[in-house]
Every structure is written in structure tokens, then in C-alpha cells.
């Protein structure tokens, strides 16, 4: 984006904004004395971790603070000669969606599920520009074109659930841009999207900005996105701006310690250079051969027949050495999580799975015994902890289920685990909701360790955490690996994290592994077109290496739904040297 030289008067000037939220213990200050300005045509990032007040700031500007609850207690926001915070609701409703528009994180839930895309697109222009239904409909088609949605007329008649995630966010952008706003506020617009789709959406926003001159306030937690997209940034922490300035300066030279720590915690993707050395050859701990997982989709009729099949995992083979981390990467629907679940027999599968040469059976008893050796950690620690049990009971439960320990022995073991994952034994009698996200993930790790497993499947286990917490959890996982020799199957969409932790990486595409090998080799010298596409979409937390605006990959994330008679064609992996395998197709 062309960084505009500071003009005489900025488009928007916020001074001394303070916002309170009601809580059972009285008002809590969530934004404190925040000041910044936005110039015409520029992109300003408001960045920070959860609880920094960045989204509240955006909602305050739009007059959308939850009522009752949120309250602006001080500050002015000068826009177009008026103070937005002083305008009556009627005036504000004329500005919202017209002069200032907003898009949100979850494009699925942000669209009304029971109205067609078209109806939702024409509402704004009909209200603000006084267009007739027919003219607004014509405008909707143009907007769909502008956000690069093919077959706009057909799409306008569809409902949100019939579109892909990326397309829904494009519709949101089309809606927001349909009255040519002067300011677009985008609150984590790409966080819920796959990495290639994220790159496309960021590029689209930049293209539209160039065409229309709209200024963008981009709210994000992702420093990679900041580096890729912003001209200037406001770094927020606990409601306050700790640092403001041009992005290039902030990334080169941080003035505040917090910014320094924040940027240090961000895993920086370095094309495999920072990856750990591959482990020496050894007898594999886990050997997976021709694993297949398919799910039937049933249709209607008197006796429902299978009408479609999801080919989630198609004949994948890999092994895992003791103490090794193998990353499974790919976009949503590629089968990486299903693979993890299939290994623990949480979903039905075909194929051979062996642990140190012993095949995994299918009887309940075999599976139970197997799970002593293999455990899983999930993405959302809150959702995977029973809210009605104390965390001590939760960590002890595997010992009880498997009848390994009883009485004071349990307590003793659990206390040791708590100590090991960095929690105190006093915390054992508390409930999950009393902990922070990072602490909850520590509890989940402790629970996974209870049975002394040799393998842990970590399914996006740091994706929901702030970067500083993420770094601590990754460090803990590394320590545990060094100490206990546990092997990880590390399922992740985040290439920078994968590079940091994994010895080897396997890239999945439509249920098959298309490339696999030492992390250094695969990320540094990707051979398969899909791996290249995936890597080219990774935002890089370095404004000097900005690339997404130029080379955002095209295309949708493909769907694994297939007709019943579909015969999958299998890729064959060829060794290109050093244990680096690439699909021959």
C-alpha cells in the first residue's frame, strides 16, 4: 500500500479514548486513554494479544459496544467534522455502513443464515444511497465482481452456508464496501480462514483500497499480518497503546519492552532454516501403513442410502521415531486432524498401525491398552476439560480409568505432573474456568502425560493461544520431549510454528501425503506445487519481506466430498534424496 505522507488533517483522530465494561466486581477499564489517527487511504493496524482492548476500540468507533455493558467514559473521535462519540444514535446509524463499514472475524456467523446473500447485499445501498431494489441488485452484482466472486448472479441467490469460508468473507467485504465507505474497520478478518485464503483476502483488501482509496483499520493479533498489510501500527496491551508508528520502524526498532517481547515471541518463518536437525535413523516407534478413513453421507428415501462419501484420509503411510516430532500440515479438510483421531481409534479406519512392531487391534480391550501409549491434546483447552470436575480430578482420571494407581498414590502422581507442567499443587482443587487459556492447555498436557505415553498427538494445540503463551507451551513440549523421549504428531496449520518444533513434516492434500521429509528440506526446498502454494501464502513477520500483495495464491480449498462410486487415485511418493519424498503425480 502506498504509505500516504501525513496530510494536514487526518481522516479520523481519536483522542484519550477510555472504555469501561460492567462486571460483577464493578466497572473494569478495558481501554485507557488511547489516542491515534488514521490518514486517508492508509492501513492502520491495531495489534495486540487477547484482552488488549483492540476489538473494543473498533466497536467503540462504530457505536456498537454491547449495551448494557460497555460504556465510553472519556475521549473524542473526530471524523468528518463531528465527534463520533457525541453523535446521537440516529446520526450514527446514518454513518455506520455508509461512511464507516466493518467486517468481522467469523464470516459464517456474521451473515444471516436464513437470508440469501443478495438480500443481505442490497440492504445497505437501499438504506444509505436511496437506491431502488432493482438498482441495488445491479450494484450487488458489481460488488460481487469487485470482490472476485465468479458467477455473481447465481451466488446472490444462494444462502451463506452454501458458500466456502473465503467466499463468505468476500461477501462480507462486498457488503462493507457497497456504499464506498471512507473507513473500513476489519476485526481479525482472516483469523478464521485457511492460510491460502487469508492471503487472498488480504490481497483483495489491498486491491480494493488502491481502487477506492478507503482507509483501513485492521485489528489483528497476528504480527505476520501486521507486517504484510499495514502502513502504521498501534501496539496495544491491557487497554493502552504501548507503541505507535510506521510498521517498518516498529519491526526494525522497538521502543517499548512489551513490543520487543511480543515480536521476539512471534515464530518467524525462515524457509526451514530454523528447523531442528532431523534425528538419526532408528527403528520407528510408530508405523502407519495405508491408513484410510472415509465417512458416509446418507441421503433420504425410505431406507437412507449412502449418497456421498468424505474421503478424509486416503492410504497414508508414515512412521515416527522415539523422541521425534512429525508435523502434519495442510488446510482445513485435508485430513490432518482425522489422521490423529484415527490413530487413537476415535474414528473408524482401515490400515495397519503398529507400535514397536505390535499391531493395534480393534477390540475394546486392545484400544484401551493402546491409549496408555498414545494420548491426544486438542486445540480448545476449555472445551476439552469437563467444567464440573476439579483439574486435579481431571488429571487423575486416566489413572483411575486404567486402574493404575489408587488413593494417595494418585494424589502424589498428579502433584508431580502439576509441578512438571508449571502449575502449583495448590491449584489441583480448582475448576477449569478459574484458569487462563495457557494454564488450561498445561492442564491438558498434564492429563495427556498421566499414563506416561510414548506418543502424543497434538492437534492445533497452540493455535488458540496468544503468541507469548504459545511460545511457553511450545517450550514446555520441547522440554518434555527431551526429558521423557515422547514423540509428537504435531498437527498444525501454522508453518512458522511447525518449522520451529518439528524434525520432519508431512504435507497433506485431499487426504493424501503429497510431500514428506526433514523440515529443513521440505520447507526450504518444496517440490510439490501444493507445498509451494501453501508456503507462499504464509505471512512473514517482517515488513522488508512483504510478498502477499504480489503473489497471493489463487483457488479455493478443495472439498473431500465425493460420489459413492469414486475411485481415488493414489499418489506414489518418490525419494528425492535425504529422506525427502514427493508425490510423483
Amino acid at each position, binding site marked *: 500500500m502506498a504509505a500516504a505522507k501525513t496530510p494536514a488533517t487526518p481522516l479520523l483522530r481519536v483522542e484519550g479514548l477510555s472504555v469501561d465494561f460492567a462486571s460483577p466486581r464493578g466497572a473494569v477499564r478495558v481501554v485507557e486513554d488511547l489516542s491515534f489517527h488514521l490518514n486517508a487511504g492508509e492501513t492502520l493496524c491495531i495489534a495486540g494479544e487477547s484482552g488488549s482492548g483492540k476489538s473494543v476500540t473498533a466497536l467503540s468507533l462504530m457505536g456498537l459496544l454491547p449495551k448494557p455493558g460497555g460504556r465510553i467514559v472519556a475521549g473524542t473521535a473526530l471524523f468528518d467534522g463531528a465527534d463520533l462519540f457525541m453523535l446521537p444514535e440516529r446520526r450514527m446509524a446514518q454513518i455506520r455502513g455508509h461512511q464507516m463499514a466493518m467486517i468481522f472475524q467469523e464470516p459464517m456467523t*456474521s451473515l*444471516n443464515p*436464513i437470508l440469501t446473500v443478495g438480500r443481505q447485499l442490497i*440492504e445497505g445501498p437501499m438504506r444509505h444511497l436511496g437506491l431502488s431494489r432493482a438498482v441495488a441488485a445491479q450494484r450487488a452484482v458489481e460488488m460481487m465482481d469487485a470482490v472476485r466472486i465468479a458467477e455473481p448472479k447465481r451466488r446472490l441467490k444462494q444462502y451463506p452456508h452454501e458458500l466456502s469460508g473465503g467466499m463468505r468473507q468476500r461477501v*462480507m467485504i462486498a457488503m462493507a464496501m457497497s456504499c464506498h465507505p471512507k473507513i473500513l474497520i476489519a476485526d481479525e478478518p482472516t483469523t478464521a480462514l485457511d492460510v491460502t485464503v487469508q492471503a487472498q483476502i488480504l490481497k483483495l483488501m489491498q486491491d480494493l483500497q488502491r481502487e477506492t482509496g478507503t482507509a483501513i483499520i485492521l485489528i489483528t493479533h497476528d504480527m505476520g499480518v501486521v507486517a504484510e498489510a499495514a502502513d502504521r501500527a498501534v501496539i496495544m496491551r491491557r487497554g493502552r497503546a504501548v507503541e505507535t508508528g510506521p510498521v517498518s520502524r516498529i519491526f526494525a526498532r522497538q521502543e517499548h519492552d512489551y513490543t520487543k517481547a511480543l515480536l521476539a515471541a512471534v515464530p518467524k518463518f525462515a524457509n526451514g532454516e530454523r528447523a531442528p536437525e532431523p534425528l538419526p535413523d532408528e527403528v520407528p516407534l510408530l508405523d502407519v501403513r495405508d491408513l484410510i478413513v472415509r465417512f458416509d453421507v446418507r441421503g433420504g428415501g425410505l431406507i437412507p442410502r449412502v449418497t456421498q462419501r468424505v474421503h478424509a484420509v486416503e492410504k497414508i503411510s508414515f512412521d515416527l521415531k522415539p523422541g521425534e516430532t512429525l508435523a502434519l500440515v495442510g488446510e482445513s479438510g485435508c485430513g490432518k486432524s482425522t489422521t490423529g483421531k484415527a490413530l487413537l481409534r476415535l474414528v473408524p479406519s482401515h490400515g495397519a498401525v503398529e507400535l514397536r512392531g505390535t499391531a493395534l487391534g480393534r477390540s475394546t480391550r486392545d484400544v484401551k491398552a493402546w491409549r496408555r501409549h498414545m494420548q491426544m491434546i486438542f486445540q480448545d483447552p476449555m472445551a476439552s476439560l469437563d467444567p464440573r470436575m476439579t483439574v486435579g480430578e481431571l488429571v487423575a482420571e486416566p489413572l483411575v480409568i486404567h486402574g493404575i494407581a489408587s488413593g494417595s498414590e494418585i494424589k502424589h502422581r498428579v502433584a508431580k505432573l502439576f509441578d512438571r507442567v508449571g502449575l502449583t499443587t495448590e491449584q489441583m482443587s480448582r475448576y477449569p474456568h478459574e484458569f487462563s487459556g495457557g494454564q488450561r492447555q498445561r492442564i491438558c498436557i498434564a492429563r495427556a502425560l498421566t499414563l506416561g505415553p510414548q506418543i502424543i498427538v497434538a492437534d492445533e494445540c497452540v493455535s488458540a493461544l496468544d503468541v507469548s503463551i504459545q511460545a511457553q507451551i511450545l517450550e514446555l513440549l520441547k522440554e518434555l520431549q527431551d526429558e521423557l523421549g515422547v514423540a509428537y504428531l504435531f498437527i498444525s496449520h501454522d508453518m512458522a510454528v511447525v518449522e520451529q518444533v518439528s524434525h520432519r513434516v508431512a504435507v497433506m492434500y485431499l487426504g493424501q501425503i503429497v510431500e514428506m521429509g526433514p523440515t529443513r528440506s521440505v520447507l526450504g526446498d518444496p517440490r510439490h506445487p501444493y507445498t509451494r502454494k501453501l508456503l507462499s501464502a504464509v505471512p512473514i513477520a517482517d515488513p522488508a519481506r512483504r510478498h502477499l500483495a504480489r503473489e497471493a495464491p489463487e483457488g479455493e480449498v478443495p472439498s473431500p466430498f465425493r460420489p459413492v462410486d469414486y475411485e481415488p487415485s493414489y499418489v506414489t511418493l518418490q525419494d528425492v534424496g535425504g529422506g525427502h519424498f514427493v508425490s510423483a503425480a
Partner: protein
Amino acid sequence: MPGYVLRRLVQMLLTLIGVSVITFLITHALPADPARQIAGRTASAAQVEQVRHQFGLDLPLPQQYLRYATGLIEGDLGRSYVQRTDVSFLIASRLPATLLLMLGAIFCELLIGLTAGSVAAFRRNTAADQGVMIGALFFVSTPQFLVAYTLLYVFSNWLGWFPLSGYGTFSHLVLPSVALGLLGGGWYARMMRSSTIEVLRQDFVRTARAKGLSRTRIVLVHVLPNGLLPIIAMIGLDIGYFMSGIVVVESVFGWPGIGQLTWQAIQTIDIPIIMGVTLVAACAIVLGNLLADLVAPLIDPRIKLK
């Protein structure tokens, strides 16, 4: 879609078989002798035995059920022991009154419940909300006869706006419908309030506000249609509930519906009628649910019937 309906109808058949077996067993477990019932109180023991043989009541239970089921297939619900008439005729003659009252009652329920519920949701935690919720709780927990008699006293006896009892004109329909509407409207109000509050929390409502739409449009286009979704299933249940007999309200207003028929049959242990109305009620419950399931996709395109 036709496949879906067909499957649901087959399921309904299975349900009806189950219901008929269970009702049959329960009625035969009653400490009453149907043969004595048919023969009359003054009949001699020999006469009772003759009746027992004549009606096949001395056959083993499974055989009796088979005879009954065979009749069902031919559309024969049996003969009332007491009224000496075909049960299917008795039910058919009561059906129009019950259907009419059902429609009136559901209309009143929706009118009262949806209005009160959505007002409460939009004015959440205000005096209006409190008032609606207390009112809803009051009517939900008040005995039916109390509401019915109060309406009757005020509007018929005192004001004389509506007839005291009976059936035939529109004004006959008003008070029983309003009585049932008040009673059931409480449930709808509570349901509508919670579903509307849930919708108001949704992201797409925030989007609608971010677009600067007018409050009226947000409410009418974005909030209420989504809030109605859980109500549809409830209407389906209500159809079944009302068709199985509105005993108290029908009695108070002298409404000649299935409820009165049922009540008389239970008092006289008239097994064929009890069996008959149970089956009709089961049919209505299943059909009501099917209707609700068929209507839901018209409002919510995410629901696919298969």
C-alpha cells in the same frame, strides 16, 4: 422430499402399532370386566359369560389383539360398549369441533405468546420484561378451570359479550380459544423470549447494526424470523396435544369435542373409545411433528429433509 415423507409415514405406522399394543395391554390390565360392562349391571352371570363369548373376550389376549388389529386395517375402531355405536363414527362426529378449537387456540397462543415474548426480549431486564415473565409464569401454573371459569364469569355472565356455552358460531369459539391461548401462551412467551435473546446475541445482528440498518428492519428482517425457528417445532407438538383432547376447557364451555368423549369413556371404562381416541391422538402427534418438520426448511434453508 417424497422419500422423506414416505419414510416418516412408515415410521408413523410403526408408532401406531406400538401405541395400540401398549394401550391394549393397559386397558386390559384395568380391574374392570368389559363383559359385565356390556351386559349391564342387572345381567345374570350366565348372560355375562354369553356376552364374553360373543365378543371374543374369552380368547387369549394376543388373539384378541389380532382381531382388533384386523379391524383397524379395515378402518373399524370397534363398537362402544356403553353407547352401542361405532367408535369411528363417534370420533368423526367430534373431530370438527376439536379441530376448530385447536386452530383457535393455537392462533391465540401465538398472538399472545409471540408478542409478549419478543417484547420481553427487546426490553430485557426492564419492568416490561419482568411483567411479561411473571404473567407467563402465572398462566402456565394456573389450573385450567380457574382461567376458564374466570373468563366465563367476566365476559359471558357479567358483560354478556359471548354465549355461556355451546358450539356453532364464531362467538362460541372465542372464549375457549382465549382460555387455551392464555394458558399455552405462557409457554410460547418464555420460549420466544429466550430464543429472541439468543438471536440478539448473534454476530449477524451485530453485522446488521454495523450496516446502519433501521431498528425496525433489524427486528423484522433479521431477528424475529430467526427467533421463530424453535417455535415451529413447538406448534407441531401443540397440534398433537390439542387433538388428544382438551378435557377441562371443553367441559367448562360445553364444547362437543374429543376431550369430552374421552372423559366420558374413561369414567365408564369404555375400552374401544379409549383405544380409539388414543390412536387418533398418536396420529395427530406424529402428523403435527411431521408438519412442523416440513415447514421448518421453508424458513431455514440450512435444514435439508432427507
